[in-house]
């Protein structure tokens, strides 16, 4: 969908006009009360659920959660996935043409303005306006997506009934920012980066993107899950005594993940999205006081964390819970003892999905969501969007 009115960004820059790629699943009821917005994290897109006809492996990135009869049931809820501006799956981003006359129709590249979680939420709110949805039944997201859900509860407190933040945090720790910085340095120091205008040179900083993805991927897994999956297993029967060749299976796995990622993901988008993660800190405007921050919230909250997630540890979710309890908000918190680390939020765990199913069942009653049928995705443009994400 095209938006002609400019979007003022936190940085002071303005996005003159922009497209937002989105998909919807299910049917909006007559009262427009059953809409649920799903926010994506680092590398995902608006393609949340379902598959594209005739396209292999085209399941949406949260297809195990969203769909007919699934915990977020598209037979009851009207689910919306939207690609955030600055991303690279159809919404306006660094690969889009720069409207500035001085750019002579070239892509934005690294001239795309820095965007924040709050900027995304503002863009999403405009999409809701355009879809005629005054109040969402829920906003849900994991990780960076959870940050967007939290930002909704603070920025548009009257526009949602329920905020679901899974494996999220009120801000990034120094260690988290450090990982992001390593990833960014890998990209910008790639000789093919060309100051972010690699498209003009007909190249892509694939090596940097690959390394960025490799380091990211390590942090999404737990030590135990990596040990269980790979251990010290070798590629061949014996050591090859090489420093360059792949010796251990974990190396092969990481390189494969990195290579695959560098085929479809835009480097400038990676820089922008990791920066949005770094900047997110709603308590900053309240002197770091998270309780004072959440005084603005009105909705009910469902917070979920995973015990083995060391990138967005349970302690960070508990900080959010404490701030909500201090403000006497309705909140439930599940701390799922799953072995998969941060990636657990994308996986199917009966306890995790059981909690979310119960949570949405309750929401359906509260929101009076109609049990309307018809649940076919309306595919918008899409590239590969599945996979683990931050």
């Amino acid at each position, binding site marked *: 969908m095209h938006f002609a009115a400019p979007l003022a960004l936190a940085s002071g820059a303005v996005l003159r006009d922009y497209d937002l790629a989105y998909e919807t699943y299910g049917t909006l009821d007559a009262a427009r009360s059953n809409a649920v917005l799903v926010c994506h994290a680092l590398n995902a897109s608006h393609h949340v659920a379902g598959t594209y006809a005739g396209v292999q492996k085209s399941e949406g990135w949260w297809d195990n959660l969203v769909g007919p009869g699934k915990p977020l049931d598209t037979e009851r809820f009207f689910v919306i996935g939207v690609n955030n501006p600055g991303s690279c799956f159809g919404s306006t981003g660094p690969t889009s043409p720069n409207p500035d006359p001085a750019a002579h129709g070239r892509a934005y590249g690294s001239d795309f303005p820095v965007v924040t979680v709050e900027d995304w939420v503002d863009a999403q709110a405009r999409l809701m306006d355009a879809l005629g949805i005054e109040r969402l039944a829920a906003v849900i997201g994991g990780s960076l997506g959870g940050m967007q859900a939290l930002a909704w509860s603070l920025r548009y407190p009257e526009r949602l009934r329920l905020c679901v933040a899974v494996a999220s945090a009120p801000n990034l720790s120094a260690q988290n920012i450090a990982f992001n910085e390593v990833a960014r340095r890998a990209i910008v120091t790639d000789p093919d980066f060309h100051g972010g205008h690699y498209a003009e040179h007909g190249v892509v900083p694939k090596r940097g993107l690959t390394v960025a993805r490799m380091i990211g991927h390590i942090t999404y897994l737990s030590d135990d899950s990596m040990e269980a999956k790979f251990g010290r297993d070798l590629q061949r029967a014996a050591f090859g005594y090489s420093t360059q060749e792949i010796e251990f299976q974990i190396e092969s796995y990481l390189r494969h993940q990195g290579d695959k990622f560098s085929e479809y993901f835009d480097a400038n988008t990676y820089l922008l999205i990791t920066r949005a993660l770094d900047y997110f800190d709603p308590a900053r405007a309240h002197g770091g006081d998270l309780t004072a921050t959440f005084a603005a919230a009105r909705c009910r909250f469902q917070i979920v964390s995973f015990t083995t997630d060391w990138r967005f540890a349970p302690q960070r979710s508990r900080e959010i819970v404490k701030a909500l*309890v201090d403000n006497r908000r309705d909140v439930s918190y599940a701390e799922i003892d799953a072995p998969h680390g941060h990636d657990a939020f994308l996986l199917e765990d009966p306890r995790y999905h059981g909690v979310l199913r119960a*949570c949405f*069942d309750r929401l359906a009653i509260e929101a009076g969501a109609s049990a309307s049928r018809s649940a076919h995705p309306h595919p918008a443009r899409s590239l590969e969007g599945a996979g683990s994400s931050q």
Partner: protein
Amino acid sequence: MSDRKDIELVAELVPHGSRVLDLGCGDGELLALLARERGCSGYGIEIADDNVLACHQRGVNVIQLNLEEGLALFDDKSFDVVLQLDTLQHLRNTEKMLRETARVGRIGIVSFPNFAHWPNRLHVAFGRMPVTRVLPYEWYDTPNIRVGTYADFEILARKDGLRILDAFGIQAGRVVRTLPNLLASVAVFKFQAGA
């Protein structure tokens, strides 16, 4: 305390409209009852996954936490009533949790199996640990790592400077106020932090 009647007897101790924290809330039955019939609000604390799920299914606000880690999440006197029903006998930090209960709540209510109920005394007199309806476990597999009596709790409350507002036993769904330490299988105390 899973008995319906016992739960109702405890619910009657909770003032209408109270803000309640239920430590070890189980499947959330009491909180649901308090919300429905006494206009109360608040949260349950549970550690067990199946109970956390059951609370979600009941629509009760639940926070999954290990009580052994204390109640750092909650400010002083942030609840009208803190409930600790059929829970303290499972805790290693029984005394600390009692103090935490008195810190966080204006009123605390605890219940636990009274080890001095006369059938238990008989069991012990005959040289065996009691196995009864309220204490249904063998000594080697019981989750009740603290076995105390009605009278023991009075002494602990005094030691920790708790003021007992009300106390009684429950036996077979009835309140016992005469010789509760002898005649009741469940002890109930309502208290607040010292004078």
